[in-house]
C-alpha cells in the first residue's frame, strides 16, 4: 500500500543537513589513509631531493659519486637522465624537474636519489659535490622591477580616463604599501608513491588537488602518454592551493625512479624541504594614486601591483590577474588604471594559495579606503559605505562585468547592528583616551569575491555514478578532498537527487581513470562544479529508473516518485534497492556519467573584459584588538562575521570554512612572516620559525553567522555559494583594527604606516613612527 509521498520525511544526509565530514570518524581514530599510510609494497624505495645551495648559478661540476656509494642508495638521477620532458610547469614549460645546469633559487632540485630507507636517502643527498659559478641573484620585488625582470609580460586593465579623474578630484592621495607572502602550511607535506605496472604503465598515489595534471606531466616526464599513467588521491592532509601545481614535481621524481628501478618508490618531503622547495602566496609591493571627493567617494584610481613570482611562471599569470579583478573589492572605483608586474626573482616559484591573488587586490583597496578615511578624519566604515557598488547604478567593475547580485549593503547593515559597531567604536575611543600604553582598535571590512576560474575552459567537471543491484552507489567525480568537505557535500547532492540515505553512497578517491581531464579543485569551485556534475549523473540514472518503472508498471511518468529510499509507482511502492535490481534484470544501465559547464561566463583576456565570474560571494567582519605600544604585541579580542553561502549545502561544513579561512587570513596578516637572508635562503621553513595561529589566537568572543536569507540568484547547485576562499579575506578586518589601534596613539590625527604582516615588530615600528611624526609636528608648530 503506497503512502503519500509528500508526507515522507527527508533522506538522511540530504542537501542542507549539518552532516559531519564523511571521514570524521576515521580522522579521529587515525584510521583515515593519507598517502603515507597506504600499506607499502614489498621492496619499496624512498627518494630524496638534492637541492641547490645558491640562489643563482651555473652548475660547474656535479659529482654524485659519493652519493651513489652511500649506504642503501640504489639509484640517482639528474636532468639528463629523464627520458621525457624535464618539466612540471603547468602553463609554461619553465619549471624543470631537475635544474638543467642553471639553478635559480636556493632549494631548487638538482638531482635525486632512491635508497632503501628514508633516512638513507636523506643522508645520501647531502654527500653530493656541486661547484657553482655564481651569478647575481635578484631577490626582491623592487630590484626585479628596476631590472625589468618578469616571468610574464606586465598587464594593464583600464576603465575610463584615470588621469583626468585624478586631476579633477577634490582630494588626492598617493602611497605605497608592502604585503607579505604566506606559506600554505598544510599539515601533510608533499608526498607521492609510484608503483610500476605491467607494460611500462605507472600508478601514482599523489597528494594533489589536480590529479589530471599530475597524470599528464608524469606521462611527459616518463616519455609515455596519458593513457599509461593513473593518478589517485583519496584525500590530502590540507592543501590550500599549495598542492595545485606543485605535486607533479614529486610525483614525477617518484615515477621516474619507479620506471628506472622497477620498484615502488615513495617521495615524502621533510617539512623543511617542503617549505624551501615549494611556492607560497605572492608577496606584493603596491603603489596607488587615488582621487576622491569630500565624502571620500573615489573618483579615479591608479594601481601598480608588483608581485614576487619567483623563478618561473607557474600559475602566476592567473594569480596576478585575480589581484587585478579584486582590487575593487566591493567598491565602485570610477576611472581606473591598473598595472600588474609579474616579477621574476631568484626565489622559489610562488603559486596558488586560497584566494589566488584576490586577497592581495582586496588588501590594496582596503588600505586605500582606510587611508582616505583617515585623511578626511572620517570613520572608515562611512567611507567604505559611500564607495560600495550601487544597485542599478555604479555597478560596473573595471573588467566590465555588471555586479547584479550585490547584497553587501544588506550584509554590512546587519553586521554593523549585530556587532554594535558604532557603540563599541565610541567605547574604544574612550578606553584609548584613558589608557596610556594599551590601545584598542576596531574595523569592519567587507568581502566581495568572484566565483569561477578566470580561465573559462577550466569551468567544467565530470562525475561517474555506479549503482549496484543492492541499491548502493559508488560516487566518483573530478574533485579532490583536502579537508574542505567537498566529498561530503557532493554525496549530499546525490542523496538528495536519488532520495537515498547518504550512507548508501560510497565516496571514492579521485582517480584519473574514472573521470578524465578534471580541472584542479581550486578557485572555490569544487562543490559548484562537481556538485552539478554529480547531480547530472544522478539525474541520468534517476530518469532511466523512472522511465523504466513507468514502462514496466505501465503508469504515467509523473506517477513514479522517488522519496526517502522508496520508489512510489502509482499505487505500488518498493525500495530503491528493489527497483535497481528489477531494472538490472531488465537490462537497464545503472552507470552514468555527468558533466557540467558553468553557463554565461565569457572573458577576453586581451581587453580584460567580459563576465569572468558566474556570481559573487559576499561577507563582512568586525574585528576588535588591543595592542601594547611598548612591545607591539596584540590580541584579537572579538570578531563578528556575517557571511553569505547562498543556500548552504551543509551549514556545519560551510561554517568550518568561514572560521578556518578567517583564522588563516589572520595568520597571513599578523604572525606569518617569510624571511629570506641576503643569500636568498628562506630562514622561516619550519613551524619553529614560521608561526601560524594557534588555539589561543582564536578569540574568546567570536560571533559568526551564515546569512540566513542567502540564496544564489544564479542557478548554482541548490542555489548555494562557493565558500572555500572568500572567508579568508574577512581577516583584513583584523589588520585594520590593529591599524586603528595604532592611530589611537596620536588621537587619530594621522594614519599609521602599517605594512603586512602586522607582526609585533611591524606594529611597534608603526607606533614609533607615528609618535615621531607627532613630535616633529609639535616641534614645527612650537
Amino acid at each position, binding site marked *: 500500500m503506497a503512502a503519500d509521498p509528500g508526507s515522507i520525511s527527508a533522506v538522511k544526509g540530504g542537501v542542507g543537513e549539518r552532516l559531519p565530514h564523511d571521514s570524521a570518524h576515521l580522522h579521529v581514530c587515525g584510521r583515515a589513509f593519507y598517502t603515507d599510510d597506504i600499506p607499502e609494497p614489498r621492496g619499496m624505495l624512498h627518494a630524496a631531493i638534492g637541492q641547490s645551495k645558491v640562489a643563482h648559478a651555473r652548475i660547474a661540476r656535479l659529482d654524485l659519486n659519493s652519493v651513489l656509494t652511500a649506504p642503501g642508495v640504489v639509484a640517482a638521477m639528474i636532468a639528463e637522465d629523464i627520458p621525457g620532458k624535464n618539466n612540471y610547469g603547468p602553463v609554461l614549460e619553465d619549471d624543470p624537474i631537475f635544474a638543467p645546469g642553471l639553478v635559480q633559487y636556493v632549494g631548487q632540485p638538482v638531482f635525486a636519489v632512491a635508497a632503501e630507507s628514508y633516512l638513507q636517502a636523506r*643522508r645520501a643527498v647531502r654527500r653530493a659535490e656541486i661547484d657553482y659559478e655564481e651569478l647575481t641573484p635578484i631577490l626582491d620585488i623592487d630590484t626585479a622591477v628596476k631590472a625589468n625582470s618578469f616571468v610574464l609580460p606586465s598587464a594593464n586593465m583600464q576603465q575610463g580616463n584615470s588621469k583626468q579623474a585624478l586631476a579633477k578630484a577634490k582630494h588626492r592621495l598617493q602611497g605605497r604599501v608592502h604585503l607579505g607572502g604566506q606559506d600554505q602550511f598544510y*599539515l601533510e607535506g608533499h608526498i607521492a608513491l609510484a608503483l610500476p605496472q605491467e607494460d611500462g604503465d605507472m600508478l601514482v598515489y599523489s597528494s594533489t588537488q589536480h590529479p589530471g595534471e599530475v597524470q599528464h606531466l608524469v606521462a611527459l616526464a616518463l616519455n609515455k602518454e596519458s593513457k599509461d599513467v593513473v593518478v589517485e588521491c583519496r584525500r590530502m592532509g590540507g592543501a590550500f592551493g599549495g598542492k595545485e601545481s606543485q605535486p607533479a614535481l614529486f610525483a614525477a621524481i617518484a615515477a621516474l625512479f619507479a620506471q628506472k628501478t622497477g620498484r615502488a618508490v615513495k617521495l615524502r618531503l621533510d617539512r623543511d624541504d617542503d617549505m624551501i622547495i615549494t611556492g607560497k602566496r605572492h608577496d606584493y609591493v603596491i603603489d596607488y594614486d587615488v582621487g576622491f571627493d569630500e565624502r571620500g567617494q573615489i573618483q579615479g584610481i591608479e594601481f601598480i601591483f608588483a608581485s614576487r613570482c619567483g623563478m618561473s611562471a607557474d600559475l602566476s599569470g592567473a594569480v596576478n590577474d585575480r589581484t587585478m579583478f579584486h582590487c575593487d573589492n566591493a567598491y565602485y572605483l570610477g576611472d581606473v588604471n591598473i598595472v600588474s608586474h609579474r616579477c621574476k626573482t631568484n626565489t622559489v616559484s610562488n603559486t596558488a594559495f586560497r584566494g589566488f591573488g584576490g586577497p592581495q587586490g582586496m588588501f590594496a583597496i582596503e588600505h586605500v579606503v582606510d587611508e582616505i578615511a583617515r585623511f578626511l578624519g572620517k570613520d572608515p566604515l562611512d567611507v567604505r559605505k559611500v564607495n560600495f557598488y550601487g544597485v542599478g547604478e555604479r555597478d560596473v567593475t573595471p573588467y566590465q562585468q555588471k555586479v547584479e547580485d550585490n547584497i553587501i549593503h544588506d550584509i554590512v547593515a546587519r553586521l554593523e547592528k549585530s556587532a554594535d559597531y558604532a557603540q563599541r567604536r565610541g567605547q574604544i575611543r574612550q578606553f584609548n583616551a584613558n589608557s596610556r600604553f594599551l590601545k584598542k582598535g576596531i574595523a569592519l571590512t567587507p568581502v566581495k569575491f568572484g566565483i569561477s576560474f578566470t580561465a573559462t575552459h577550466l569551468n567544467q567537471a565530470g562525475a561517474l555514478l555506479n549503482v549496484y543491484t543492492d541499491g548502493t552507489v559508488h560516487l566518483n567525480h573530478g574533485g579532490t578532498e583536502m579537508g574542505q568537505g567537498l566529498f561530503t557535500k557532493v554525496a549530499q547532492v546525490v542523496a538528495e537527487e536519488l532520495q537515498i540515505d547518504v550512507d548508501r553512497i560510497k565516496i571514492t578517491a579521485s582517480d584519473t581513470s574514472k573521470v578524465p581531464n578534471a580541472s584542479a579543485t581550486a578557485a572555490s569551485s569544487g562543490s559548484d562544479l562537481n556538485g552539478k556534475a554529480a547531480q547530472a549523473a544522478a539525474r541520468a540514472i534517476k530518469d532511466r529508473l523512472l522511465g523504466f518503472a513507468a514502462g514496466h508498471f505501465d503508469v504515467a511518468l509523473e506517477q513514479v516518485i522517488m522519496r526517502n529510499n522508496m520508489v512510489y509507482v502509482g499505487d505500488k511502492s518498493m525500495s530503491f534497492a528493489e527497483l535497481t535490481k528489477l531494472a538490472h534484470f531488465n537490462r537497464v544501465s545503472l552507470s552514468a556519467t555527468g558533466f557540467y559547464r558553468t553557463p554565461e561566463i565569457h572573458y577576453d583576456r586581451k581587453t580584460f573584459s567580459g563576465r569572468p565570474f558566474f556570481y559573487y560571494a559576499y561577507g563582512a567582519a568586525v574585528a576588535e584588538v*588591543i595592542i601594547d605600544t611598548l612591545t607591539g604585541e596584540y590580541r584579537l579580542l572579538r570578531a563578528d562575521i556575517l557571511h553569505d553561502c547562498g543556500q548552504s549545502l551543509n551549514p556545519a561544513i560551510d561554517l568550518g570554512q568561514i572560521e578556518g579561512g578567517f583564522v588563516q587570513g589572520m595568520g597571513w596578516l599578523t604572525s606569518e612572516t617569510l624571511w629570506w637572508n641576503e643569500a636568498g635562503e628562506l630562514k622561516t621553513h619550519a613551524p619553529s620559525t614560521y608561526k601560524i595561529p594557534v588555539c589561543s*589566537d582564536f578569540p574568546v568572543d*567570536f560571533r559568526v553567522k551564515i546569512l540566513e536569507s542567502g540564496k544564489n540568484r544564479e542557478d548554482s547547485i541548490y542555489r548555494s555559494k562557493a565558500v572555500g576562499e572568500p572567508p579568508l579575506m574577512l581577516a583584513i578586518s583584523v589588520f585594520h583594527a590593529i591599524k586603528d589601534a595604532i592611530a589611537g596613539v596620536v588621537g587619530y590625527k594621522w594614519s599609521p604606516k602599517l605594512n603586512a604582516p602586522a607582526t609585533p615588530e611591524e606594529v611597534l615600528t608603526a607606533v614609533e613612527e607615528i609618535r615621531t611624526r607627532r613630535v616633529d609636528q609639535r616641534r614645527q608648530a612650537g
Partner: protein
Amino acid sequence: MDNANTSPGDEIRFVVDDAIMTVRDIDPTRTILQYLREDLRYTGTKEGCAEGDCGACTIVLGELDDNEQLRLRAVNSCIQFLPTLDGRQLITVENLSPPGGPLHPVQQAMVDCHGSQCGFCTPGFVMSLFALYKSNSAPTRRDIDDALAGNLCRCTGYRPIIDAARKMYTYGTRAQSWLDHPFQRDARVSHEEQRLVEMLKSLQRNKLFQMDTAGVRFFAPTNLTELARLTAQHPDAQILAGGTDVGLWVTKQLTELNTIIYIGKVCELSRVAVADGYIEIGAGVTLTDAMPILVKHYQELEELFVRFASPPIRNAATLGGNIANGSPIGDSMPALISLGATIVLRNQDKSREIALEDFYIDYQKNDRQPGEVVVKVRIPLPRPEQHVRSYKITKRFDQDISSVCGAFSMTLEDDTVAQIKICYGGVAAIPQRAIACEQALLGKRWSESTVREAMRTLQRDFQPITDMRASSRYRSTVARNLLYKFFLETSGFARLETRVYCHGR
C-alpha cells in the same frame, strides 16, 4: 662495565596495547614515531614537522609517579628516542577505540563538533585532548588553550576543537574502559589501571640500562654512581635529558650520535626540593614538574612558564637541559640568572657550584668540562621587597621562541635600588646580564628619569643581531621598553594596564 662488550645489551621494555612489548636490535636514535609508523605500522600518529612544533605526532605516555600512581602525559613522538620508552606505557590514537567500535568520548566530541577537516592534525589533537581529559575535570578556556598550545591546525581555526574540549565530558557513563573515564580527583583506581600499574612496576629497573646497536651506544644509568662512572668512561658522550633539542639534531641535521647517556632515569636527578633558602631542581626534572614550585615562589613567572614551549615539550624537556644547552634564546635562563640561580656540575665524585651567568662563555659555548654533567639548579627563595618580572616577546603568544626575553629582579630600600639584576635573552650570543644598565640604576632612586637614563645605557650592553625572528632595531627598542615596563609595574603606576596577554581570555 666492559667497553669491548659488543653485545646488543638490554631489551627495551614498555607497555603498548595493554601488554608488555620488548624491542631489541634497534638503532637507539630511532624515534618513537618511526617505530610506530614503520615497524608497528600504527599509522594513526602522523609526522607533520619532525621537530616537536606541530603536534601531529602527539602520543600519551603513561608512567608511575612518585606515589606509584599512573600518570599520563602528552609528548611529541617525533623527537623521542625509542629507548626512553623503557619502563613506560605508550598510548596512541589507535588505542582509544576499537576498529569500527564505539568512539572514545574525546573522539566522539571531535566528530560531533566538526573538529576535523583535513584530519591530518586530528590524531594529535585527540591525544592532547585525551591527556587533558585524564588530568582536568572541568577545563577553562585558558586550560584548553594551554593543553592545545602544541598542536597546529590549519583548517578549522580551532573553534570546533575548543568546543570538543568542553563537550568531551558530556558523554556520561557509557565508559568502555579506564581510558574512557574522565579525570576525577581522588577517584578509586580501577582494576584495569591497577593492572597497568603492576605491569609498569615490573618493568622498572634499579640498575643501568644499556644498548649497543647500529653503531650507537645508549646508556640509561639509574643513579649518580653509575652516571659518574659512565661520564668518566665516555667523556664525549652526548648527554640526553628530555631530548627536545637532541632529537632534532638527529631528525633535522641527520647527526649520527655515537654514545648517548640518558639521565632521565637517574633517581637523584629527578628531585625537587626547597632547602637552605634555595629551590633545588634536579637536572632530570621536566619543565612540567619544575614549573609549579617555581611559580609557587615566584608568581610573576607564571606567564613565562605557561608560554614556555608547549605541554608536550614541557612534559619531556628539562630545566637542566634548557640550561646546559645554553641557547641564546632559551626561555628559562634570563629569569634564573636575574634571580641569582646557581648550577651544580658534577664530574665523577667532584662537584662544583657556579653562578648560572658564569656558565655561558660564547655562542653555544659553555663552561662544562668533558665528563661533567649539570646535576641541579639552585634558585634562591624570594627576598622581602624583591620585585621580579619576566617578559617573553614573540610573534605569536603561545609556543614561539622569544625574539627578546627580559627578566628583572630588584630590591628597593626607601625607594632606592639596593640590588638589581637584569638579564636578557635574544639580544646577545648568550643569555646575558645588562651590567651597564644595572650600574646606572644601582643606588639611584627608582624614578622615571633614572630609568630613562638607564634605558639609554642598554646600547652599551647589547648589540643584537637581525634574523628571521626580529631585527636588531626591534630587539634594542623592546629591550629598552621592557625595562620601562618593569618600572611601570613596580612603581606608582602599579594600577596601569601594561600587558595585553590576559586580555580577551
